[in-house]
């Protein structure tokens, strides 16, 4: 078994704002998805508030600056994450395909120092 991070991708729908009935159904289906797959989830992670609540701290220039907004302005953004334990990447992809929301970026979890 391996651990995978599921980065839940938003396509700009603000579920915390004024969702349409269709979007509310997706949100309800997402709750059900978490219930159904609860045994595979090792860390529930978090649901993030919309990108308009984001603050980014930059240090790359040698000086620390604080700016409002996400690290990248794009239609798609990270809306949350969870850690799941699954047999392999194929199982992770198969499960991600059942996600009722918009999309998921799957990333194995691990230490960069491993295997060196």
């Amino acid at each position, binding site marked *: 078994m391996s651990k995978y991070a599921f980065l839940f991708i938003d396509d700009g729908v603000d579920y915390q704002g004024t969702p349409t009935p269709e979007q509310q159904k997706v949100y309800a289906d997402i709750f059900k998805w978490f219930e159904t797959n609860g045994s595979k989830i090792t860390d529930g992670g978090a649901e993030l*508030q919309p990108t308009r609540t984001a603050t980014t*701290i930059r*240090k*790359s220039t040698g000086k620390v600056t604080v700016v409002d907004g996400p690290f990248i302005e794009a239609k*798609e953004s990270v809306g949350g994450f969870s850690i799941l334990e699954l047999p392999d*990447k194929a199982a992770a992809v198969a499960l*991600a395909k059942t996600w009722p*929301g918009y999309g998921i970026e799957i990333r*194995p979890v691990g230490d960069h120092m491993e295997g060196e």
Partner: protein
Amino acid sequence: MPQYVLMLLEHEDWVDRQSKEDKERAYASINKWVEDITKKGIMKGGEELQSKRTATTVRRKNGAMSVTEGPFIESKEHVGGFMMIEVPDLDAAIAIAKSWPGGDVEVRPIVVH
């Protein structure tokens, strides 16, 4: 107390460009920092992700889920890890993010259900 996620950002393949010694030094300061905020009770969990080359993205296209190799967005920066912290307010979260010995950080409040 509110919780915030620190999205730890990595610039391109910074990790790959570092020498083994540089990496060891960076990880040593990161481990010390994590230990420190864990002791203070601020740290509420987190994970380090493997490189963006290992990413697979599944997204809805015309109603069906389609699978592509790579991260959801192609950019110089990508999410390298997450950390959840519990602090009184956004200013305190920003202060923690500033003290992070790694690279840039995006701070986002967590939805409370």
